[in-house]
């Protein structure tokens, strides 16, 4: 189902992930969050920005375990656990945060 962001129509796949990664603008995350009734805070953006940087460097979306560890290392140990990440992204930090970040679904994520 396509989504409307900043007056543009962007194509998404059947699970709601952007089809074209280059379509991403911050508004994509805002629009997707609104559909999920979620208000994005700086804590959400820290994760989204981390995911985008990780993808830029390694060309894949990280597994949740890798994401959790990396967040703990970069943003502080108290944030490097699944409770914190699920608190921010109740549909699953891997799936939901990657979707907001315009990344494909993580490999091995069911």
């Amino acid at each position, binding site marked *: 189902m396509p989504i409307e962001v900043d007056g543009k129509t962007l194509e998404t796949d059947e699970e709601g992930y952007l089809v074209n990664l280059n379509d991403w603008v911050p508004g994509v995350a805002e629009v997707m969050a609104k559909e999920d009734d979620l208000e994005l805070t700086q804590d959400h953006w820290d994760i989204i920005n981390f995911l985008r940087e990780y993808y830029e460097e390694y060309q894949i979306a990280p597994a949740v375990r890798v994401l959790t560890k*990396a967040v703990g290392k970069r943003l502080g140990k108290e944030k490097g656990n699944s409770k914190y990440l699920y608190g921010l992204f109740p549909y699953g930090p891997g799936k939901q945060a990657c979707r907001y970040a315009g990344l494909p679904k993580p490999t091995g994520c069911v």
Partner: protein
Amino acid sequence: MSDTKNFMFLNRRAPYGTIYAWESLEVVLIAAAFEQNVSLMFADDGVYELTKGQDTAGIGMKNFSPTYRTLGDYEVRHMYVDKASLEARGLTADDLVQVEWEDWETEESVDNIVEVVDSEKVAELLAESDVVFSF
């Protein structure tokens, strides 16, 4: 999980042009996510999978060469390269990417888990593995 096995992924083909290298990498990522002991072996044209500076823009394929460098984050501890295959192609360890490994809790780290090994060691490592996936 108590049922941990030693998985060896044997990679013998050039990275681009066929789907084997990418498929292998995807299975590696999945196996590692299930907390198995995962090692990789690169032999024959498979050594090109680890060569630096790959650029796929001209062939319209996704460039997944940078992905190998995150394997340490996936708890892959060993990436072996067959010395004879490397030499036969005029390559040395300096032509290959480096992959860092770090235990994020103890901060124990290894600067580079890519290791060039001779044929005898290759045979030994394959024999020691519980499961060998060949790509």
